């Protein structure tokens, strides 16, 4: 399975931890595309820095549009008002880090 890596930045009124981020992204994918759709996404939060809100989400290359739409649809994380911005997408972690730090 080819994979894609999405650099994301969490903007929230309160701090968000990795579990809450994972939960929010999974919930958004499931709400928009259902359990069957979510099962095809191959979604994993592989990095997340709670201090600056930056993280990396991995998914299947075919699921990038689904994941981008799902992430953009998030308005709350664990009941707190929040937004997640997708900073960019890359085929390798190395290239992602090079471009988005």
């Amino acid at each position: 399975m080819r994979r894609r890596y999405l650099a994301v930045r969490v903007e929230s009124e309160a701090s968000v931890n990795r579990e809450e981020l994972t939960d929010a992204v999974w919930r958004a994918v499931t709400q928009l595309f259902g359990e069957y759709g979510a099962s095809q996404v191959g979604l994993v939060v592989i990095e997340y820095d709670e201090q600056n809100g930056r993280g990396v989400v991995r998914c299947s290359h075919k699921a990038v549009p689904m994941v981008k739409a799902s992430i953009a649809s998030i308005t709350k994380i664990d009941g707190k008002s929040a937004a997640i911005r997708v900073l960019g997408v890359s085929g390798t972690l190395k290239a992602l880090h090079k471009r988005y730090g």
Partner: protein
Amino acid sequence: MTATRGFGDLHLRPPLSDMERVKRMVAKSAELGFRLVGVTLPYNASLEVVEKLRKICAEVDVDLATRIDLAPKASNELLDDLRRFRRRFELVSVVCTSKSVARQAAKDRRVDLLSFPSSERRQRFFDRAEAELASGALASLEVDMAPLLLLEGFQRARLLSCLRREVAIAEGFKVPITVCSGATSEQLLRNPSDFVALASLFDMASERALEALSEVPFAIVRRNREKLSPDFVAPGIRVVRRGDCCRSG
């Protein structure tokens, strides 16, 4: 994407009573890549408020377009509103809450944006007849993303279904579409590529969505500024020189 195109969000709805929040929203829009924002103003907005807004926008190098959202109950009320307000605002949006208002708005060349706020299919009047009227005038179909972000479950599914149908009709009749945030807070703002991803949920092709965020809003504002200019006579005709030197005899 951002390097080659300028993006415009024609529908910001910040609370004008809280200028700090307005400032944050405009700054966030600029940070997300927008170079043009349309801010909804009340019909009696003072010049002072408009000047304050212009200053806030200029600080972050964003172009401000003043906008009014008309929500008439009947078509003659819409005509009255257009007579009163068209020349005072750079953008005029009509919130279509009845079929007669929707039809009048679609054929009136003073209307820039047609807005359908309800997620109830029977309350949305953008059908083939509406699109045909709009295609002969200048109105664009406005798609606000805020309801898509705020609704959940069955209601969001219903809204997506309506948007899918309306976008397909608009494209069929070559009615321009504008994608806007409709945001009342920073949390509802998204960058252009996020809007493109969200637009894919109602089957809007990414190139069309990019146009709806860039070329279309800029074209509307450019056209209206030209019309509001004192030199405007008619489309394609404008005064280029005034004074004694122009007299033939």
